Structures are given as structure tokens and as C-alpha cells.
């Protein structure tokens, strides 16, 4: 068992312990979960420190992955179809390693936020840890089948986490989220099976689900559906382009892009605070990661062909999300729409297929992971105290909650791209990538970068305006004196969580090389792979 497997299955193990423990030790569940997550953070920190980004570039070469673990898992003899060979195949490269660390840290914060959960503790922590396992699995699986299993495994715990512990409209939000994602992923399954029959493992000659084999044009069977040379067509569209589009839609629902975003405001708003943190902090990144790891790497020529559209979708998401955020009166909804807007930069950066753009996209995902977790955590603090989060119901909070206001100012300014914080670096790089694209590979026109800049301006508008409405001025609250007593300032546990997140956002803003160094070689390798086509 390698370190990676321990990391992935540790939460599951802790979850099983919680399931079998009697409910008389109910209060102990969260400490078991906390212990598991802290060990997880330590392991991923160890992995980060020992990760050699220069040598282990990953992408399409198994020898360039770190902590590789490859065991035959399912092996079915299927007669004429050959052998159904599915490997338990894990590994880390510069694209996935940052997300392991991000997941661990965000999970820790989400767990600290889970102290507010009061009902049905056994179910809650068991599902929480199952979700943790699934997410870590998605980021490290290199076998497409294994990837899909972890990908789908995320849905069920989330459905119940939103559905049981969520807000008023939780049933609607939970099933909407589930249906949206399943819709994308069922068709993804068809493409995965299609790819399986198109690709053979050069070593054994059998068909394979190995993602790395799928990235190499040499491994495609002559005349198969997704073979680049065969030029197969389905419904008058090239099969490879169609495969790309199907996979892209599946992941884009997660990102989410406009117009497939409508599950997000509902799910984020109805979910309990810790689940909102996980959704915004990690789950959205699964979409972006999937696009890089799967769509762009396996169908590079289709990615280049559709780059303009990807860029356009990114721009639309940035502007549309920001305009919607401006119109919200519910603080949590505002943060949810700001997520859509910020994730648009990821798409814009990826579409540019330049080193700056993709690095910027990666950085934006990491930075947004920390910052959106922080924002949702902060919203959760207000909500648990007075069960209200309408912006007009609050005024002058800075006077009664000074520490809280300080944190929210940090979070807002960092999110709107103040230099010195990670979001600034991330958005700047994405935009530079988009801007340079016209001169480097001619994929994106310059006006897209200009429109992206407009998005930053809009985000400054909604964040600053909210700050002014809720925190400045004389204290006037909808709930009167009662609220004033309830709105106590942040306690030690909350300060811990917020400090962790602030530290990451700040450190990455001042020393972005801490992240860039680890992933740069992989990003360059990915671009080399795409340009081969």
C-alpha cells in the first residue's frame, strides 16, 4: 500500500469506525473525523514537500508520475471483446498534486465548520468522510474507469448532505444537483466505453481504460470510433469532436458554466455551511481538473478546434455571474454567483492553451478553493448566529463584530483581486494567457481578455458595495437588540479556520512560485502534447 492509497482510504476507514460505534459516544464522532483529516493534511503536506515538479512532469508518461500505484483490479474475460482490464492505477503529477493539498486543507476547514451540525451526527460524519475519500480518489485516479467510479461516488454523499442537513428548499436543491451531474456523467460513461474500445495498451495488446494510453495517438486501434485517422462521424459531427463535447459538458456542469449553472445557486444556498465550503472549495475544481486531465489531454485537436467557444463560455460566465451577483440580496447567493464568475477565468485560461493561461487557470482554481471556502465560512458564521443572511437586514456590523469584519474585508479584497493575494496572480495570469493567445497560437481574440478584465471590475463593484451596505455605518439590525446579543464575534475555532485560509491566500499571493514551481513542468508538458496534434 502506497502513501496515496493510505491518503485516499484513511477517511473511509474513519467513516466505518464511526458507523460501527454506538451512538452513546455521539460526541466523539467529530473528533475521530478531525483526527483523520489532520493526518490527511499532514500526509498531503509531506507529499507536497517531497514532490519534485521538475522531474515528474506527468501527463502522458507513467514514469513521470510520482507515487504511482498500479494493480490489476477487475479482469474479466469477455471472449471476442478480449479482456476487460481495469487497473487500480493512481499517481500524482503537477496537475493533480496541488488539488490533493487543497482538498485536505478545505476538508479540515469544512470539518471545523461542522461543529455547528447538531442532528444525526453519525450519518453526517460518515457521509462527510466518504465524500472525502471520493474526492481524493478523483484527483489521483489515472484509470478512467476508476476515475469515473470515484466521480460518481461523490454524488450520493452530497445528495444526502445537502438533503438532510440543508436549508428550507433542500429537497429541490439536492435532487437538482444530482440530476444535473448524473445527466452529464451517464453520457460520459458512453464516451469512456467508446474510448476503451478504441485504445489498446501497447504492453499487453488488450483494450484498456488507462488514461495515459488514451493520450497517445499511436495506441488507437485502426478504424475504431475515436481513432483520429478514421474520421468517424456521428450525426454528421466528427466522433472525436463529439466525444470532446460530451466530456466537456459533463465537467462543465461541475465547473459550472453558464447556461448549465442553475444547480449551483440552489445547491450552495441550501447546503449547510460545511457542504457549501466543500462544494465551492473543491467540487467545482473537479470540473476544471477534469477538463485539463481528460478533455484537453485526450482530445487535443478537438480542444484547439473548440478553444474559441471555450473562451466565449468563460467570458459569458464571468460577466453573467458577476452581474447576477450584483443583483442578489442574499449574501450566500451573492457568494455563489461570484463563484460562477471566478470559475469563468479558469475556462478562459484553459482555452488560451498558453503556459500563462493554464498556469493561471490552475492557480485560480487553487486560490478560489481557499477564498470561496473562506467566504462561505464567513457567511455561515452570521447565519448560525441569527439564521438570516439578507444583506439589507444588516448594517454597521463592523462596530459589533470587529474581528469578523476584519476577516470579511480580507476575504472580499482578496477575492476581488487585490495585489498581494493569490486571486490577483491567478486572474492576472489567466488574462495574460488569453491576451497573448492571439499572437502565440491565434486561438482567442484579444477582446476576450478585455471582457475578462471587465469581470474583475464588476467583482470589485459587488464586493465593495456589499461591504459598504453590511458593515459600514451605524449599527442597524433587522432583529433589533436580540440580534445584537446573538451576533457575538468569532470564537477561537472559527479564528483558527479563517487564519489557515487567510495564510494560504496570502502566501500564494506573495510567493506564487510555491505553487507554480510544482506545476509548471506539467503545464508545459500538457501544452507540448496539445501542440503535437
Amino acid at each position, binding site marked *: 500500500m502506497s502513501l496515496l492509497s493510505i491518503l485516499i482510504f484513511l477517511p473511509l476507514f474513519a467513516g466505518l469506525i464511526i458507523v460501527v460505534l454506538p451512538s452513546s459516544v455521539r460526541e466523539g464522532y467529530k473528533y475521530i473525523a478531525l483526527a483523520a483529516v489532520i493526518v490527511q493534511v499532514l500526509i498531503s503536506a509531506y507529499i507536497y514537500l517531497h514532490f519534485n515538479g521538475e522531474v515528474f512532469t506527468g501527463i502522458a508518461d507513467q514514469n513521470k508520475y510520482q507515487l504511482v500505484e498500479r494493480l490489476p483490479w477487475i479482469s474479466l474475460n469477455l471472449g471476442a471483446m478480449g479482456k476487460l482490464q481495469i487497473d487500480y492505477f493512481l499517481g500524482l503529477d503537477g496537475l493533480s498534486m496541488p488539488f490533493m493539498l487543497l482538498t485536505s486543507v478545505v476538508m479540515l476547514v469544512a470539518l471545523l465548520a461542522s461543529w455547528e451540525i447538531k442532528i444525526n451526527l453519525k450519518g453526517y460524519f460518515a457521509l462527510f468522510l466518504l465524500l472525502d475519500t471520493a474526492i481524493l480518489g478523483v484527483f489521483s485516479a489515472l484509470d478512467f474507469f476508476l476515475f469515473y467510479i470515484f466521480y460518481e461516488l461523490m454524488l*450520493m454523499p452530497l445528495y444526502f448532505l445537502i438533503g438532510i442537513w440543508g436549508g428550507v428548499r433542500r429537497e429541490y436543491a439536492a435532487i437538482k444537483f444530482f440530476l444535473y451531474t448524473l445527466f452529464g456523467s451517464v453520457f460520459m*460513461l458512453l464516451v469512456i466505453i467508446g474510448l476503451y474500445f478504441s485504445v489498446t495498451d501497447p504492453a499487453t495488446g488488450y483494450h484498456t481504460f488507462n488514461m495515459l494510453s488514451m493520450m497517445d495517438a499511436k495506441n488507437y486501434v485502426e478504424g475504431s470510433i475515436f481513432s483520429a485517422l478514421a474520421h468517424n462521424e456521428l450525426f454528421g459531427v466528427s466522433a472525436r469532436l463529439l466525444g470532446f463535447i460530451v466530456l466537456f459538458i459533463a465537467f462543465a456542469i461541475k465547473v459550472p458554466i453558464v447556461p448549465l449553472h442553475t444547480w449551483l445557486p440552489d445547491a450552495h444556498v441550501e447546503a449547510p455551511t460545511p457542504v457549501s465550503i466543500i462544494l465551492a472549495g473543491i467540487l467545482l475544481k473537479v470540473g476544471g481538473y477534469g477538463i485539463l486531465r481528460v478533455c484537453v489531454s485526450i482530445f487535443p485537436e478537438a480542444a484547439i478546434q473548440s478553444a474559441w467557444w471555450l473562451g466565449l463560455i468563460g467570458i459569458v460566465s464571468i460577466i453573467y455571474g458577476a452581474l447576477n451577483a450584483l443583483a442578489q440580496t442574499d449574501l450566500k447567493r451573492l457568494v455563489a454567483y461570484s463563484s460562477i464568475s471566478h470559475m469563468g477565468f479558469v475556462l478562459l485560461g484553459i482555452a488560451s492553451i498558453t503556459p500563462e493561461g493554464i498556469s493561471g487557470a490552475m492557480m485560480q482554481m487553487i486560490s478560489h478553493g481557499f477564498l470561496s471556502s473562506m467566504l462561505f465560512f464567513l457567511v455561515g458564521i452570521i447565519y448560525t448566529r441569527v439564521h438570516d443572511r439578507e444583506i439589507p437586514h444588516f448594517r454597521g456590523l463592523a462596530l459589533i463584530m470587529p474581528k469578523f469584519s476584519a476577516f470579511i474585508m480580507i476575504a472580499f479584497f482578496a477575492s476581488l483581486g487585490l495585489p498581494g493575494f493569490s486571486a490577483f496572480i491567478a486572474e492576472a495570469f489567466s488574462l495574460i494567457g488569453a491576451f497573448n493567445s492571439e499572437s502565440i497560437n491565434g486561438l482567442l481574440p484579444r477582446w476576450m481578455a478585455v471582457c475578462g478584465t471587465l469581470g474583475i471590475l464588476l467583482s470589485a463593484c459587488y464586493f465593495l458595495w456589499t461591504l459598504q451596505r453590511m458593515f459600514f455605518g451605524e449599527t442597524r439590525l433587522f432583529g433589533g437588540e436580540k440580534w445584537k446579543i446573538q451576533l457575538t464575534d468569532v470564537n477561537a475555532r472559527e479564528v483558527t479556520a479563517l487564519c489557515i485560509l487567510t495564510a494560504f491566500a496570502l502566501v500564494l499571493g506573495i510567493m506564487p512560485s510555491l505553487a507554480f514551481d510544482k506545476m509548471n513542468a506539467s503545464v508545459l508538458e500538457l501544452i507540448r502534447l496539445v501542440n503535437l496534434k
Partner: protein
Amino acid sequence: MNEFTSILPELIKNIITGMPHFLPEIVLIITFIVVILVDLFYPGKKSVHTYVLVLTGIVVSAFFTIIQYQSSINGISVFNDSLKIDRIGIIFKLLFSAVVILYAIFIKGNIRMQNHNKGIGDLYMLLPAALLGLNLMAMASSLLMVYISIEMVSLASYLMVGYVSDGEKQSEAAMKYALFGGVCSAIMLYGMSLLYAFTGTLSLSDPQFMIRLAEMPQSVAAIAIILVLVGIGFKLAFVPLHFWSPDVYEGAPIPVTAFLSTGPKMAGFAVLIRFMEPFHIASNTSQGTPVFDFVAILSVIAIGSMIVGNFAAIWQNNMKRMLAYSSIGHTGLILMAIIVNSNDGIKAMLFYLMMYSIANMAAFMIAGKIEEQTGIINISSYKGLGKVFPLEMVCFVIILMSLTGLPPLAGFMGKVLIFSAAIESYSATNSIWMLSLLIVAALTTVVSLFYYFKIPLNAFLRQSDEIFIVKVKRDTLSYISLILTLLLILWGIMPGLLI
């Protein structure tokens, strides 16, 4: 009479040489007779002796079937080609035995059936008889045998559906089932008589069967074949012959519903494969136009079943009706594997059938338990049951996830295998039917999530208005359904254990 005397010794010899291969079925026949006698003279408290005897008989019969498996790689024809014993048939027979054993346990655990004033012994008696019919269906290779075996299962099923007819609904269900069944098998018999008239043989493995059928005008042959399909379709409950199933499923006692949705349905698939076999062999060897285009007609049926079954299930509130419609949807999906017509397709189908029968049995067991202890039969009344039946409801959710086809459960592997077979077939033939089947199957999977998840939605997400004061006991059925659920997880993660 005299013209037979010359061939009589050979016929007898044929029968005698066939006997050893018929051992599992002979055991069932003996069990059947012994059970009648024991139940008559020495029933024990609540027919407990009968119960034990039935279980022993079935286990012994299954044991002999397993022995057969070793020696039947190429398949053996016995009794003048009316039965064919091959590996697929044997796997089917083992599946049937497992289903009937579960069914017997289910009956034993069902208090309503146990307390019925007619006593339960007669119902146990029917089990070996029904299993015999199912086994014959799996082995039948002549038209006559197909008919006899289907009738045998049908008769047993009619009796079971009407067994506890203590209300109008039950009587209606039993009547409906018997009437529709009778009409459908009459139509099938008519089709068979046409086929016999065209070909002069009843044996499906006789080469003359296909040669003479190919000489007939295509439309005439097609009519005969469609008439036979009607009879098989009644057992499978595919669209458009599905209309009886929701009513019967709803009206029948819940263990019987569980049996109907698994045993006879699987046997229907076995018969369909047997019936299609000569056509496939013919189309593989000869170059001419196929006698009958199974792909087109079965594709239409499969697409229809998936759409009607899954969409109609959305609007159901009665638990049993919902499962009835969903099983129509599953029939469509399994038909897809048959249309593929390859070894992979058959393998995928067997895996899927196994997963499906386990999941359905377990689902009905839990639904039955809930109905018995709380009287709840509607999904909308499942509110808050997650707290009352924690173990059962968690199992139920996992079972439903498996039926939806979510990883890492057996249902997902089944779906993957069927999709793989279909995609492989599509890339070989580029048939537009395959592509549409795949797309419909993917879409209806999403639809099925919607209705299956109404149960966890009510049980876990919603709170009940009333407080349940029932004292919930865990009994055999709870643990059996727990074991079945664990099997679904195990086979989802390690499907290699089976194939």
C-alpha cells in the same frame, strides 16, 4: 399404431439415456410429490416441515445442476432434441433456484401469508413445481417444450397471485393475470402451429426448421414469429404487452410480486434466447436476407419499454406499482443485451439479471417488511421512516442505487457490461438502432434516478407528521436483505468473482 412399433425401442432408449441429465428436475418432481403427501398428513406447525422439505429439495436439485455444469461445455441434447443442456441454461437454472429459495424464505417471513386461514402448505407445494417449469423454460429447445414449460410456470403463477385473495383488488389481479395470460399463450400456440405447418418440425435445433422457414414468404413467416413473441413478451412484460404487470404486481401478495418480477421474467429471457438461436445460426452461415429482422423489432420494443417503464414510474405513488414500471424499464435494457447477439451480450445479460433479481428481491423484502409493520404502501407515506427502520432503509437506498446503476455497485457493472457489448456491436455494424438504444438507455438512467430517489427523499430528507410508535423488530428478512445488499456492493467492487 403399428407404424410406431419399429421406432419404439429407439425412443425408449433415447429417454433412458436422457434420464441422467434430467436428475435435477427429477429431484424437483420427487420433492413436489413428497411435499403434497407430507403437507396432507404431517404438516407441522404452520407447515414448517413442508418448508424444510421444499428448501432441501431445491438445494439438492441445485447441487445436481452444479455437477452438470462441469460436464456440459458443448451442450447436450436429450429427449429427442426437446431439451438442450448447456452452460447458459445451467446458469439460468442456478439463478432460478436461488430466486425460489429466497422466495420461500420471504413467504416464511411474511406474517400476513403465514396467518392466512388456508394455511401456507399449498403455496410451498407450488414452489418445486414452478421451479421445474422455470428449469424447463431454460432448457427448452422444441416449440412444444417451450409452450409446456411456459404454461407450467403460468399455472403456478396464477395460483400464487390468487392465493391470499382477501380483497377485491387481489381477486381482480388474479383474474386479470389469468385472462391475459390465457389469451397470450393461446396466441403463442397459434403462432407455433403455423411454424409447425410451415416447417414440419417442432425442434428448434433441426436444420430443416430454418431451411423450410426461409422458403416461406417473408411476411407469412414474420406473422408466425410475432405471434410466438407475443407469448414470450407476456412473460417478459415488455411494451406493448406490459399492461397487466402494474395491476398484478400491486394486487398480488408482496412475496409473490417479488417472485413474478424475477423468476418468470428471467425465464422469459432464457426462452427468447433459445427461440432466437436458430435464426442467428442461419444468419451467420447463409448470405441471403435474414428470415426475420429481430434487431429492428426488438429495438423498437426495447426503446418503448425503457421509455414507457421509466417515465410511467415517475408518477407512481404505490411502491409495488413503481417497482413494476421500473422493472419494465429494466426489461428494455436487458433486451438491449439480447439484440447485441454475441457472447458478450449474453454474459452482460446474465450478470445484469443476477444483479437485478437480487436487488428486486431485496427491495420487495424491505417494502414487505415496512408494509407489514406500519401498513404503509405508498411512497409518499415513507416520510421519516429512515429513523424508524435505520438498517432496512440504508439497505434500501443502496439497493435502489444499484438499480439506478450508480458505482460502485453491481448494477453499475451490469450497465457497463451491457453498454460495452452495445458499443462494441455499434462499432462493428454502425447500426442506427444500437446508437438510439444507447442514447435512450443513458437518458432513462437519469430519469430512473428521479423516481428511485423518491424513497430516500421521503425516508431521510422529510420528517414525518405522525410519530411511529411501532416497535420495530429485526427479523430474518432484515438480515437476508442486508446480506443481499452486501452482495451488491461486493460484486460491484469485485465483479471478477462471478465471471
